[in-house]
């Protein structure tokens, strides 16, 4: 059914309806995992390795056990679990996947690796107990830098392998060498996409509750992927998946960091089994700095062959990805997303890609907002400015000359994707207009007159979203599918329950899913309840990540709504004694064409379906439908971001004067929510560009575990943003939607860095690494002047 935005009633698709989730959060009635209390519940604290690499020679828990209120101290040997943490991700089938015990087994390989677990009456006593556990370590050689880890003779993170190489991803097109040889010019660039700490405001936390009598395990956990967690808990804990229930309470942000299956989730279940009580663990922020995955950490080397006119003829990309000490759920797959997006939104058919993944003595890396795609976008967008600068072509013009054109869609990329739709020139035109790009030089002169450097930067991006067609996840060797589930259930009173496999943690699915339900089935927005994140309710859900919820889960919902509507049609025809072909859908009722007095509302049909007093032949009672939707393709949101900065040479501080974003996420369900996603995404990209960096000392010590050292942007650090949209509906799904969760983050960092490089270009500055903290900028200026 085509969506007509001009005729929707309030609360339907396309309306900026206020969120139904909000009231519980603004009144303090949200229920996050730390808000839950179970009878007899005990509390856990972990003893973690203070060394980046060390042999554990002894663990003495006697002092901890002597402390009143401490119930148990568990170690690898005493934890009743045989298996370690699993990984779903095995691209190519030849990835190295070392054992990751729940609690460190003989050797700890990064600062923060859990070594022992203390169970006590309350969290204060658990922490006291952890401080009393005496562990003897024999330090081993450490390597934290991924490039150094791949050098001959580097300390081995896992002694069972002959190197620290996890996996090499390679993709070279047949014509690459010839094309590169014909280039008029080859331009090189090294880009360091620094390690980041995701930093959801709610840290991780979980409660394990193992019922001895039945063997049933309930795990309450702050996650984006309840069903993955259930599957893995059942395997790791050696119990039936049918006996495990994972409940996701309200989740205080995730950003990919909760798209995982963590040691602590298994540990609280096993500990509950061991001590016979529910066991809760809540991560401290300082602990989160080492215990929760990091993101990015990719060093890239670009070589691009261009014509004299700035047209790219061949692109070489050689990168090293720092995987950390172990592979988590999707670690080896993240750089595959980078591989996919290396060419960006440019028509580049001759390409050579190599990405080497390395083990290091650091916290594992995995998905962080954008997950592999911001790395690709930041690099290619820095590269486009390098080309523009080298050839003396305007930065917007060089992009325009290389864009994939609207008539080329569907477009087969050199990395094997089929881009669905887009209008990259339209994004660029709109953004240049909104940002007054043409008038910039006058503004630069104004700043110069004040002794400041002003610059403008562009970032044009496309991202691969709507993860994922299961055929692709299978081809990548990921042992999991990419479909999504929905169930729509109409109650006798005409109200609806929507059960979704997506797992929102701030994205407002209850609101958006209700809007889709109102438009497609005529059930009023306020009569729809959305259930998510509890494995007891759903057959299986793949969860929320990769800007997939609407493009995959929303379509699963759309299809279930259509099934219910069609079943209602058969029922209506039966009750109205006509053929289904005689009926038309009014938006809220089936009526006999041209006879408004002969109709049945969806609520009347819900009641009739439930009472089953008179059903057509072969129709089961109750209006309910379930869909498992496997998307035929990814979606490809795109956009142009423009940033204008002013740099104070005295302090090195960058002030963002203007930030403009034009995004194309296809059709929009709720513009309010879309804008909110873009705002937050941009500021996370800004955080990477200006402030954030997860730093290890060479000996493996973590130098940025808290918000004192790791600088998450505050309101005072960020600009007011100007947003606009273009719309090219996705042809891959019936709602024409693409996804918006990660767009801001993917687009932002390059626009900001390009603006800063532009500001200092008069000094001869050609590149700046992130984060562009004042000290770095001040040094860049001093070096350029000397």
């Amino acid at each position, binding site marked *: 059914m085509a969506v007509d935005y001009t005729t929707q009633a309030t609360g339907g698709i396309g309306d900026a309806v206020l969120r139904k989730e909000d009231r519980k959060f603004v009144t303090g009635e949200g229920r996050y995992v730390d808000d839950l209390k179970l009878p007899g519940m005990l509390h856990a604290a972990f003893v973690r390795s203070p060394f980046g690499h060390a042999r554990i020679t002894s663990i003495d828990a006697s002092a901890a056990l002597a402390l009143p209120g401490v119930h148990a101290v568990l170690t690898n040997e005493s934890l009743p679990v045989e298996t370690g943490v699993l990984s779903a991700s095995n691209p190519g089938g030849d990835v190295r996947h070392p054992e990751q015990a729940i609690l460190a087994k003989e050797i700890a390989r990064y600062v923060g690796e859990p070594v022992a677990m203390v169970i006590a009456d309350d969290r204060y006593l658990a922490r006291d107990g952890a401080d009393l556990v005496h562990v003897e370590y024999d330090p081993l050689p450490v390597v934290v830098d991924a490039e150094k880890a791949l050098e001959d003779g580097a300390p081995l993170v896992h002694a069972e392998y002959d190197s620290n190489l996890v996996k090499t991803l390679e993709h070279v097109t047949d014509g690459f060498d010839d094309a590169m040889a014909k280039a008029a010019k080859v331009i090189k660039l090294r880009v360091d996409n620094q390690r980041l700490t995701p930093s959801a405001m*709610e840290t991780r936390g979980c409660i394990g509750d193992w019922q001895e009598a039945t063997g049933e395990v309930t795990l309450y956990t702050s996650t984006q992927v309840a069903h993955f967690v259930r599957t893995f808990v059942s395997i790791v804990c050696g119990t039936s998946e049918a006996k495990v229930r994972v409940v996701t309470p309200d989740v205080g942000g995730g950003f990919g960091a909760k798209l995982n299956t963590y040691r602590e989730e298994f540990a609280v279940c096993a500990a509950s089994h061991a001590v016979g009580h529910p066991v809760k663990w809540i991560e401290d*922020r300082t602990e989160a700095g080492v215990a929760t995955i990091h993101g990015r950490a990719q060093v890239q080397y670009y070589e691009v062959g261009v014509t004299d006119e700035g047209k790219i003829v061949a692109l070489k990309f050689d990168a090293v990805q720092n995987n950390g000490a172990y592979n988590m759920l999707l670690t080896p797959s993240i750089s595959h997303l980078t591989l996919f997006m290396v060419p960006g939104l440019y028509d580049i058919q001759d390409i050579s890609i190599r990405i080497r993944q390395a083990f290091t003595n650091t916290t594992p890396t995995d998905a962080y907002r954008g997950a592999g795609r911001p790395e690709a976008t930041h690099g290619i967008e820095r590269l486009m400015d390098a080309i523009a600068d080298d050839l003396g072509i305007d930065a917007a013009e060089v992009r325009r000359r290389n864009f994939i054109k609207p008539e080329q869609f569907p477009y087969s990329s050199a990395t094997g994707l089929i881009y669905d739709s887009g209008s990259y020139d339209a994004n660029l035109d709109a953004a240049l207009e909104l940002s007054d790009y043409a008038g910039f030089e006058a503004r630069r002169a104004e700043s110069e007159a004040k002794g400041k450097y002003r610059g403008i930067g562009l970032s044009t991006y496309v991202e691969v979203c709507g993860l994922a067609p299961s055929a692709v996840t299978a081809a990548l060797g990921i042992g999991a599918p990419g479909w999504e589930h929905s169930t729509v259930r109409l109650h006798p009173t005409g109200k609806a329950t929507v059960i979704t496999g997506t797992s929102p943690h701030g994205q407002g699915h209850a609101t958006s899913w209700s809007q889709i339900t109102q438009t497609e089935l005529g059930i009023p927005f306020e009569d729809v309840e959305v259930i998510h994140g509890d494995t007891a309710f759903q057959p299986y859900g793949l969860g929320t990540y990769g800007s997939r919820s609407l493009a995959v889960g929303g379509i699963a919902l759309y299809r279930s709504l259509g099934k219910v509507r069609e079943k209602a049609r058969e029922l209506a025809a039966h009750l109205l004694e006509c053929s289904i072909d005689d009926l038309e859908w009014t938006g809220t009722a089936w009526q006999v064409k041209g006879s408004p007095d002969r109709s049945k509302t969806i609520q009347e049909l819900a009641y009739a379906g439930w009472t089953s007093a008179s059903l057509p032949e072969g129709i089961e009672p109750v209006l309910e439908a379930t869909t498992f939707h496997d998307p035929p393709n990814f979606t490809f949101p795109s956009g142009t971001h423009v940033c204008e900065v002013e740099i104070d040479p005295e302090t090195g501080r960058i002030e963002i004067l203007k930030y403009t974003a034009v995004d194309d996420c296809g059709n929009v369900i709720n513009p309010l929510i879309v804008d909110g996603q873009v705002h937050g995404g941009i500021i996370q990209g800004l955080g990477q560009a200006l402030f954030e960096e997860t730093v290890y000392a060479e000996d493996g010590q973590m130098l940025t575990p808290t918000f004192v050292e790791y600088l998450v942007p*505050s309101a005072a650090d960020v600009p007011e943003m100007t947003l606009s949209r273009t719309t090219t509906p996705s042809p891959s799904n019936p709602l024409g939607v693409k996804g918006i969760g990660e767009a801001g983050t993917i687009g932002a960092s390059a626009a900001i860095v390009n603006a800063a490089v532009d500001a200092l270009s008069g000094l001869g500055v050609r590149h700046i690494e992130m984060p562009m903290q004042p000290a770095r900028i001040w040094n860049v200026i001093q070096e350029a002047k000397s």
Partner: protein
Amino acid sequence: MGETITVTVNGTAHTAEVEPRTLLVHFLREQLNLTGTHIGCDTSTCGCCTVHLDGDAVLSCSTLAVQCDGREVRTVEGLQAADGTLHPIQQAFHENHGLQCGYCTPGMMMAAVGIIEQQPNATDEEIRDALEGNLCRCTGYQNIVASIRAAADQMARS
């Protein structure tokens, strides 16, 4: 051993025994079951735990429960009227999409009420500066600033 304190929270006096080291935030959450006040860090940096102590916005993670003996605390649960009418700041966060995951929201709103009371005519820049101690990872702050501005206007009118 424990000390006995009496703290008035959202207008109700509570007498309880606490350890001297018990933080106000844990007293509120664990002993009074007022779980609307959240913990986002352990370095007094994020502002998630902001409550009002005798009318001033403070970090309940950096305040000992024993320090609150004989004093008045207001938490997010005390914002709305007895009849369920939302406080202007709550209504404004809802109407301006000033929250996403909701985790920072109680602390953000308590800080915002403090800002509005002290600077009823604050500019956007002043709001942003005053909000520096409250971190949000979801919204990019734009709609939070808009929410606070809207609430300030509403409170000035009423």
